[in-house]
């Protein structure tokens, strides 16, 4: 009840501003990735994503054809428009634009401002105007048209080309399906196994129950790294090797402690009366579990399912070790970390798009199921 003390407007403003800054710090990097994934490769390398809504100056190259030259009073004149170059038709579809500067050498594509006359290296002069029209004057006959470089203002362009490249050429579609293939069985199977065990730990009386619960809590923190070598050896020895079956089993094993712990904590809190009256009415443990406990535990089951889904979807370590490294079984995280970062290291548009493809599904799950996720977190940590 802070407001009892009569919080003044100033401190309220300070709180608002602090929270806004923190939220921006948390949100902006992701927005940057999202915006970059829709930008043109040239635009990405010429201006930051925060400038995406604005036009940028990009450098282009136009070849001048020599065959259109005419002779006037002993000088050869070549006229035309740089925007008419067929190789630029993709950028300037109606062959118009604004030239800011031009040059005749590739090393200095914006040497002269538009409209200024400059000397050509082979003799003669050249000028490129703002509207893109150029005029080359030469004392000798022009046999080979020079190449003109110019800097033009290009409007912001947003495209889906990156998505097309990533999904088709880079094989991210395959990786996406592989990730799904790993994730779904690895989410469903541990829930079922854990639910039975959690019921036994919560509602059945047997010697050693406390010890088993302590063991589960202990296993909760065993580092995954320990399991890698012995289990891979085991899988190889029994003939599973590196395969989808292997990774499903591994994820099931690694997810169980949290599943048992979360579900038991939840089931213990269910009302004793319901279970006892069912027993009095002659229901067996199996019936009680299926008809009463499972439906009542739905929130806990959902929250564990979300955890396990996010964990397996986002996992890199287990996938690197338990799946073969070939393209036909790579999941998205492995694809990005091992493949794209190496081969496409400098291609920021592709990287951004690949990353966004891999985080889109978890984000949707997160925002639609946030309620269950929070409930699960609280059940696991605060008692």
């Amino acid at each position, binding site marked *: 009840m802070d407001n009892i003390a009569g919080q003044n407007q100033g401190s309220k403003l300070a709180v608002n501003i602090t929270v806004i800054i*923190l939220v921006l710090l948390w949100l902006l990097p992701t927005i940057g990735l999202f915006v970059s994934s829709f930008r043109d490769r040239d635009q990405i390398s010429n201006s*930051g994503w925060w400038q995406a809504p604005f036009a940028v100056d990009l450098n282009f190259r136009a070849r001048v054809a020599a065959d259109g030259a005419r002779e006037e009073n002993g000088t050869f004149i070549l006229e035309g428009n740089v925007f008419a170059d067929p190789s630029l038709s993709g950028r300037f579809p109606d062959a118009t634009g604004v030239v800011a500067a031009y040059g005749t050498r590739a090393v200095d594509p914006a040497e002269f401002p538009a409209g200024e006359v400059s000397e050509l290296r082979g003799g003669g002069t050249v000028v490129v105007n703002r509207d893109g029209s150029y005029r080359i004057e030469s004392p000798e006959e022009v046999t080979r048209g020079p190449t003109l470089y110019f800097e033009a203002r290009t409007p912001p362009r947003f495209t889906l080309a990156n998505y097309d490249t990533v999904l088709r050429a880079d094989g991210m579609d395959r990786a996406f399906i592989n990730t799904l*293939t790993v994730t779904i069985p690895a989410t469903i199977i541990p829930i079922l196994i854990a639910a039975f065990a959690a019921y036994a730990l919560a509602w059945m009386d047997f010697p050693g129950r406390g010890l088993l619960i302590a063991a589960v809590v202990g296993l909760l923190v065993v580092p995954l790294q320990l399991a890698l070598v012995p289990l891979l050896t085991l899988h190889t020895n029994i003939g599973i090797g590196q395969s*989808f079956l292997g990774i499903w089993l591994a994820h099931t094993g690694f997810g169980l402690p949290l599943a048992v712990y979360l579900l038991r904590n939840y089931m213990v809190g269910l009302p004793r009366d319901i279970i006892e009256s069912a027993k009095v009415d002659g229901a067996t443990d199996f019936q009680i579990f299926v008809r009463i406990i499972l439906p009542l535990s739905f929130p806990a089951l959902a929250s564990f399912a979300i955890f396990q889904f996010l964990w397996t979807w*986002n996992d*890199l370590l287990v996938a690197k070790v338990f799946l073969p490294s070939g393209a036909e079984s790579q999941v998205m995280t492995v694809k990005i970390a091992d493949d794209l970062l190496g081969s496409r290291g400098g291609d920021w548009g592709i990287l951004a798009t690949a990353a966004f493809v891999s985080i889109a599904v978890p984000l949707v799950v997160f925002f639609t199921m946030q309620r269950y996720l929070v409930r699960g*977190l609280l059940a696991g940590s605060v008692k």
Partner: protein
Amino acid sequence: MSPVFQGMLTIIIGVGGCVGYFYFSNMLLDKVIFPAKGPNTGRNINRANQVRPWLFLFPAMFALGLYLAYPVVGSFWRSLFDRSGANFIGLGNYIDLFGEGTFRTAVMNNLLWVLFVPAMATFLGLLVAQLTDRLSWGNIAKSLIFMPMAISFVGASLIWKFVYSANPDIGIINSIRDSMGLTVLDPLQVRFWNNFFLMFILVWIQTGFAMVILSAALRGIPEETIEAAIIDGANAFQVFFKIKVPQIMGTIVVVWTTITILVLKVFDIVYTMTGGNFGTHILPSYMMTYMFRDDGRATAVAFVIMLLVLPVMIWNIRQARNEMR
């Protein structure tokens, strides 16, 4: 057979197998082994009820034992052998590791990670939880700060690769430096401090987790204690540090240890951002350099990680046992 089909088959076999196992094992127990009829009805029912918990527990215990308990022993045993696995060399792998400069760097860096990340994430989480508590748009703010929890470490690393990029047209940090007339630099190559830039990625991910739990804990504080303090003339800071924080200390410790354990598992960030170059290795990433090459060394590194986790593990178990009493 395509993996998708194989996956669907696995779901059917897995789910069907589980349900079938539980159903038929129960039926076997009740109808065949200890039938609830005949001369020993009462005794049979009791016996069946003694066996039943183990039927329910068996699959989970088997999987836990095989996938988590056995590897602790198996890894330690393997770490006592050389690369081929044929020759017993005692603590040879550990001795060699401690002789390596990179390994010592990794241990030191890992200690930094274990100190900095949980502290920073818990602090920021607590700050956000407190600040958003009475805010009209607090839930939206919390939701946005919680969001990175859903993003993979690889995805988060890529997101921050953009922020840290040395190219002023890509990286916002260098863009600001550039516009201020400072030289452009690659943050990930600045020795020592680059560790903190990597740690901040994990802080960015984990702050939401800390915030959600601490926010619930703050709401659970009885209002009378706060009202009493305010009537006694405590200011906002005193209320926070002297009344609220002591009451949620238990939760703060839980959050802290949970993040500590996570820190000791995460290799993805270092692996994706620097590959361990520029003095940024931590133990999990260092272990991966030996994975598939020298199992003896890899398991030795893994066991060192286990030793670091051990205190937290013991504390966790004691905590859980106290709760059950």
